[in-house]
């Protein structure tokens, strides 16, 4: 898990430019599934055929980034955010483009630091003229944080743990999945960070009986953190709700029951802001029951996102147990009127 997560975390793949990370993931899974394919939004699908329930598991593979909007005469790049970026976090960061060009982020003179906005920042790629800069970077190119993964104790720090941690769990689950009747569609989705866009079209295409997202979630266990009853290292979460979805109650119960039966530690998660692919999945077509397994993550959307390897292993165990459980459709779709 450690090596896989390191590889996935360090691979380039901002929203809308997921081809590199999709290729890396496809290499990892292609020998374990019946087919893989991609679509117009850049989603990567991996299918394990079966005659049972049609289950979609989505892990978004895109990460946040910075899109170049302008090259000035002295070779500095102006940029805008792709997904949720804080200007304060960006200061001094090393960034990298799809072609390997690197840069650092500087800021204009500023009287008060709390007035820092993205418009005051620029990327310096070491070029001294517009012509020189344009040899390496064009308007519209997207950079991501450039950061090597560090292993600290049983935890890992790096960029894009949101959501390469989820991708790593899904990759492992595909590789290790026990024989099951269920038809499993693992989808490594695109453009989650800009509005759950990849999962919307992939759910439409698959039309599954139920959908599960595997993503990271915030925690409330750091000094003076906003109140939240999720801690790092206490197991994956079963999501109750966030701003995009109220998870299907039966699915929530099933995940909890499976966790308890298999003695997997888990936490309930109520995330007050933010959303995940389940938000798009559950509103597709005539509505699809959806749930979420989350991996607790500290410092989300910074280049120092921290996850706990135990949490990942337990998430993997829970996901595998869920995917190979015999699922009665009547159980998944309880008729509320019965």
């Amino acid at each position, binding site marked *: 898990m450690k090596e896989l997560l390191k590889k996935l975390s360090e691979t380039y793949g901002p*929203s*809308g*430019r*997921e*081809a590199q990370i*999709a*290729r890396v993931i*496809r290499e990892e899974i292609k020998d374990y599934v019946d087919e893989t*394919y*991609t*679509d*117009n*939004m*850049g*989603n*990567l699908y991996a299918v394990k055929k079966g005659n049972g329930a049609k289950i979609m598991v989505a892990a978004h593979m895109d990460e946040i980034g910075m*899109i170049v*909007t*302008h090259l*000035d005469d002295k070779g500095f790049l*102006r940029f*805008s*955010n*792709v997904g949720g970026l804080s200007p304060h976090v960006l200061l001094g960061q090393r960034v990298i483009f799809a072609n390997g060009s690197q840069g650092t982020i500087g800021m204009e003179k500023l009287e008060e630091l709390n007035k820092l906005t993205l*418009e005051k920042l620029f990327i310096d790629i070491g070029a001294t003229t517009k012509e020189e800069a344009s040899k390496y970077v064009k*308007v*519209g190119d997207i950079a991501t944080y450039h950061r090597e993964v560090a292993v600290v104790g049983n935890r890992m720090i790096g960029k894009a743990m949101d959501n390469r941690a989820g991708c790593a769990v899904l990759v492992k689950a595909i590789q290790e999945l026990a024989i099951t009747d269920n038809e499993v569609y693992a989808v490594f989705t695109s*453009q989650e960070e*800009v*509005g759950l*866009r990849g999962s*919307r*079209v*992939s759910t*439409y*295409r698959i039309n599954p009986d139920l959908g599960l997202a595997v993503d990271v979630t915030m925690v409330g266990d750091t000094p003076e953190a906003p109140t939240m009853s999720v801690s790092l290292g206490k197991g994956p979460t079963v999501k109750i709700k966030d701003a995009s979805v109220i998870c299907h109650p039966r699915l929530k119960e099933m995940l909890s029951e499976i966790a308890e039966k298999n003695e997997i530690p888990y936490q309930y998660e109520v995330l007050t802001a933010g959303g995940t692919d389940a938000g798009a999945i559950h509103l597709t077509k005539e509505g699809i029951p959806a749930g979420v397994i989350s991996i607790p993550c500290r410092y989300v959307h910074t280049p120092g996102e921290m996850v706990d390897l135990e949490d990942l292993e337990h998430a993997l165990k829970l996901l595998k147990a869920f995917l190979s459980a015999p699922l009665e459709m009547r159980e998944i779709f309880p008729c509320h009127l019965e």
Partner: protein
Amino acid sequence: MLLKRLSEASGASGDEGEVRSLLKEELALHAEEVTTDALGNLYFKKGIGRKPRVMVVAHMDEVGLMVVGYEKSGLLRVAKVGSIDDRVLASKVVAIGKDRVPGVIGAKAVHLQKPDERTKAIKIDNLYIDLGVRSQEEAEKLVKIGDYGTFTVTAREAGDNCLIGKAFDNRAGCAVLAELLKEEFALELNAVFTVQEEVGLRGAGVAAYRLHPDLALVIETTAAADVVGSKESAYVTKLGDGPALTLMDSTYIAPQQIVDLVVETAEKLNIPYQFRRLTTAGTDAGIISQTHAGILSAVISIPCRYIHSPASIINLDDWQNTLRLARGILNAVAEGGLRLEGIA
């Protein structure tokens, strides 16, 4: 010039009838099939059954006003349809309803304003339309609640091959689409004039669902902010620098192969082009690219100064170059220049 007539036609979101009729009359002969749908989108089909099936889209609605109430005095209360800066509204002439009843967006005269009122923009709640009548009864005879108002501006040529007028967003795009429809392409061309873009991309979603094309090309009009008070990095686009390719906005990110296709086409054909340097706002591509299992979409825009106001300026060379670029893209696609399935 069709573009002038389109600009002068009245067609706020949800009330596109006049523009629809004009386009239908002008273009029916150039298509094999003309249809509309429940929302009012207008479809022209040409080369039925050919592959690939391409949808070229321009929204025909414009921003405007809607009458929402009467005052006893006969003045009308109004609401905005689409996004208009309150500051451009005061003292403009508008035409209301099917009969194009004239009125003025009224505000307190400068003599009567208190000093602090003079420094503030008047909000829409304090603006009203004055029909020149003296009672609610008289006003009720002329206009009904729910009638739409649009600016009345005669389009005119100006300066260095420019055009001044209203509603270039997106009648300029409609005019490009009209020209494309008169030409021949080795593909199935679906020219779609969409409704209700300005209030949330509503027409384009159902149109894309209905057509399920292999590719959508959206022709739009976008802000040119190359004026006093903007830094070059905040220009969005520059008037006269050619059509602008959208890389990312609030609703859509251009796939790399789309960027490559448009840039290569422009460079091959020697068409000036620029990138839209703003990552907010949205176009019909936002909803189209998310329809069915994802539809490959591209957006090119005509730069427009003072967009969403009664007095906008576009450059006719930009318009012509947008047409050339759209034509080039369609030809490149017909020749197989785009992989239509799968990105990774």
